[in-house]
């Protein structure tokens, strides 16, 4: 046992020698021959040619709960699963467009109902077992099985019916939809293909949920992603090693990934992540706050920080518009009367100093926001959405029209009161762990004070905040932020639809409670079956305009995606989509060729 690591290290050095040797003499013709010999169709991707070997360390916000994509719900698990699994068609995080992955090509029938995918030849799972159409059939059977309770199931039900999957031959699979689906081939992104040879038995026994725990032996699970499990130390780190059967190569036919090992350190606190990065313990950092970003950029030594531009996170204020019947206190009922008044919400929106939020909260590394689709989402951003400048006069005029008036308070300040003469006072919930949003709340508080509204900011632990907003519904207003996981606005469909669980101001309605919510529902349903991008864009633009008119969500600002990496990390190109720095993990390499893991 003692000698084992030494032997492994020696082997790895040999492999590395061989690889660099082959990289030297590799001509394209030779590569082609090698490829034909093994009947493998590697996917060649462009980009800087790296050097193989080395170990990259990144920090993770906490311990992932599972490595099983069927039960993973937390962001940390998904980040790790993202580098261990692969999908049929993938969305390139940089271009935000689809590109071939396990499927080398696909066709969509003219009526938009049948997708025919052709698999790459010679694919192998990370344990060396071959992968073919049967694995795809099995994966979709598992995803669609009701007893598995996979979160992916909802995505695969189009027009009320599950997608029907059939095998044409061992390389070709057909997907039959009951209705045209506007998202198109993007729906395949993120759907990991599961190893049938390992999971068929547990699936039949109904034990799939128990597989993929971090403590399980590495051979219990296999994936098609660039890395596979090597070692897990509870509470400290997760070590992944290079998948030698990965199906991508660089422009010179060197099989990817370059790195030997990828290590996730569990660092729960954002500030601690910055300290670890500064001290050189980790090689890359993402999801940096603007203030930490400026700390890092002021004292750069040996690393670079990058601003990838505006991301897809949108921060917004919303009021409690739930229909609570007789349940709420008289106090909340009175407040809801103001909140339901559209002119009240418009006035609040007109009073918000979005420029100040960008400057003071994000130190200029963000964009003011007036709609759900952020400017970072270049394809879907609605250029015609009005961007009214801040105007307290307009806000006061709107409030006056809605029957509000002003009185002079005991200390000489003017207070806003409603038509019954009651002062306008309410509280805004914000997550106590999110410093950015607490700051936004403090700015809003001051903005609204100038309209005569008395606002209390209530910082709350995030989970109990979510509970209040979605379960007990006892709150006045709340500031929240959501990051879309994909550029396609359908990724936020549960925010748009009045029946959606994250339609936060009034979630999970059986019937849309207002005409404009019904109108948005209809537009979103229509775009689902619209076939061209232009049609869909037009419908979504209209939905955004309705949202902007009615202001159920008062959009505030969107932060830039900020990341950093040591200068020795090659191919570091942060994207605005998740996973911000690891999306091209197979291409990342270490320039100075550090020795592999010293223990």
């Amino acid at each position, binding site marked *: 046992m003692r000698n084992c690591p030494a032997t492994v290290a020696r082997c790895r050095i040999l492999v590395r020698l061989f690889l660099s040797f082959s990289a030297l003499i590799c001509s394209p013709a030779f590569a082609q021959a090698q490829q034909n010999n093994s009947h493998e169709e590697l996917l060649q991707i462009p980009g800087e040619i790296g050097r193989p070997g080395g170990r990259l360390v990144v920090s993770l916000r906490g311990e992932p709960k599972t490595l099983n994509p069927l039960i993973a719900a937390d962001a940390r698990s998904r980040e790790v699963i993202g580098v261990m699994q692969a999908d049929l068609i993938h969305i390139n995080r940089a271009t935000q467009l689809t590109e071939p992955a396990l499927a080398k090509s696909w066709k969509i029938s003219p009526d938009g109902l049948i997708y025919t995918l052709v698999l790459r030849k010679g694919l192998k799972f990370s344990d060396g077992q071959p992968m073919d159409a049967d694995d795809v059939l099995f994966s979709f059977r598992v995803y669609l099985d009701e007893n598995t309770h996979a979160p992916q199931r909802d995505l695969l039900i189009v027009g009320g019916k599950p997608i029907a999957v059939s095998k044409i031959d061992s390389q070709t699979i057909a997907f039959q939809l009951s209705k045209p689906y506007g998202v198109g081939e993007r729906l395949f992104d993120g759907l990991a293909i599961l190893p049938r040879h390992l999971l068929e038995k547990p699936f039949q026994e109904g034990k799939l949920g128990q597989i993929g725990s971090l403590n399980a032996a590495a051979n219990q699970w296999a994936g098609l992603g660039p890395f596979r499990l090597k070692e897990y130390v509870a509470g400290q780190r997760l070590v992944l090693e290079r998948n030698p059967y990965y199906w991508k190569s660089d422009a010179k036919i060197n099989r990817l990934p370059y790195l030997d090992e990828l290590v996730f350190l569990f660092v729960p606190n954002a*500030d601690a992540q*910055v*300290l670890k990065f500064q001290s050189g313990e980790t090689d890359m950092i993402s999801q940096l*706050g603007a*203030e*930490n970003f*400026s*700390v890092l950029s*002021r004292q750069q030594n040996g690393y670079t920080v990058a601003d990838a531009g505006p991301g897809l996170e949108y921060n917004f204020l919303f009021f409690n518009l739930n229909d609570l019947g007789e349940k709420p206190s008289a106090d909340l009922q009175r407040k809801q009367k103001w909140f339901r008044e559209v002119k009240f919400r418009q006035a609040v929106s007109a009073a918000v*100093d979005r420029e*100040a939020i960008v*400057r*003071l909260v994000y*130190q*200029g590394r963000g964009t003011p926001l007036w709609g759900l689709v952020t400017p970072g989402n270049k394809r879907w951003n609605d250029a015609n959405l009005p961007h009214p400048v801040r105007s307290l006069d307009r806000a006061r005029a709107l409030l006056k029209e809605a029957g509000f008036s002003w009185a002079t308070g005991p*200390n*000489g300040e003017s207070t806003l009161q409603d038509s019954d003469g009651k002062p306008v006072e309410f*509280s805004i919930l914000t997550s*106590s762990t999110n*410093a950015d949003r607490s*700051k936004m709340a*403090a*700015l809003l*508080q*001051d903005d609204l004070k100038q309209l005569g509204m008395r606002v*209390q*900011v*209530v*910082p*709350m632990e995030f989970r109990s905040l979510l509970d209040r907003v979605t379960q007990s519904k006892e709150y006045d207003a709340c500031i929240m932020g959501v990051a879309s996981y994909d550029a396609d606005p359908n990724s936020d469909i549960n925010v748009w639809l009045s029946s959606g669980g994250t339609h936060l101001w009034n979630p999970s309605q059986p019937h849309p409670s207002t005409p404009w919510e019904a109108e948005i529902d209809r537009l979103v349903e229509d775009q689902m079956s619209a076939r061209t991008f232009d049609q869909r864009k037009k419908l979504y633009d209209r939905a955004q305009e309705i949202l902007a008119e009615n202001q159920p969500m008062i959009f505030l600002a969107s932060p830039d995606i900020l990341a950093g990496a040591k200068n020795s990390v090659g191919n570091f190109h942060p994207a605005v989509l998740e996973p911000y720095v690891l999306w091209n993990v197979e291409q990342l390499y270490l320039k100075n060729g550090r020795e592999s893991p010293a223990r």
Partner: protein
Amino acid sequence: MIRRRKLAIWLLILGVLHAIVLCAGFFAPYNPVEQDRKNPYLPPMRVHFVDTHNHLHLRPFVYAFQLRPGTFDQYVEDTTRQIPLHFFIAGAPYRLLGFLPARIHLFGAGDERIYLLGTDAFGRDQLSRLLFGGQVSLLAGLLGAGFTLLIGWCIGAVAGYFGGWQDDVLMRLAELFLALPWLYLLFAVRAFLPLSVNPLQAFFLIVAVIGAVGWARPARLVRGIVLSAKERDFVRAARGFGASNIYLLRRHILPETSSVLLTQAAILIPQYVLAEMTLSFLGLGVPEPVPSWGNLLSNLQQYSVLVSYWWTYLPALAMVPFFLGYLGLASALQERADPYKIERRSLGNLA
């Protein structure tokens, strides 16, 4: 005589410090909640008498600051623009001592803004926040300590004077309170109370909470003194002449506890100021935007603030003179009380 003078000096120092905080509106140039969104994290401005051309100015001045282009929190001193300080100048309205409407401030700069202790994340003047924050923190300490001593005094007197089962019950209760981990108790109590409270309610909540947990120690001290005092000859004599319990306590016994109570107060006040700061630092105290010394420091929980803006530490220094003052007062009081006691005790032994 020396002892008495020491006491007077400490009282004078504390009196001046408290007067400054009490008249915060006059000494502070701005309203503590007013945001100057163009100047976040502005460093403290230095007061100059001599300009860059070596000209002496009789009126002190500061140089204006300018944002370094391309940054949002880096400033450079603009030596071409001098902002002269004006004294006793009209500015933002405030209420002196909480009720007298006034506009005159000790210093200001007319339309320009001066920040002698820099600004915070929202461009609020830190000097003004520090002074007004002192009002909240010190008042919480004073009221909390007063509340504690009142409870402790009553309970201690009852337990010591009546003895018997009252004594047993009350002292076991006191021991229980001493054994409680009070900081965590404060968290728990504050967490159970309603979340959305206005600043005034929050303030009295804190006072009640920190006041209610600390009564056990003064109660035990008072009990000890009452216990020994009630057996003194003159107390027995008075009882023999038919004095009532209330009369005995008021006339003969409780006056004996005054020096202990004063010393306790001088020790407890800074402790309770610190307790308020701890609660506010952790976000359980007075809510934003009302300043208190604790929530002025709470920004420092962020790493970026910790390493970038040194002047945000200054509120931590503000409490040092107050604490020194109170501790000095406590030891002076103790010195005054102790020899007196020793003399009396030795006399008692002789007799």
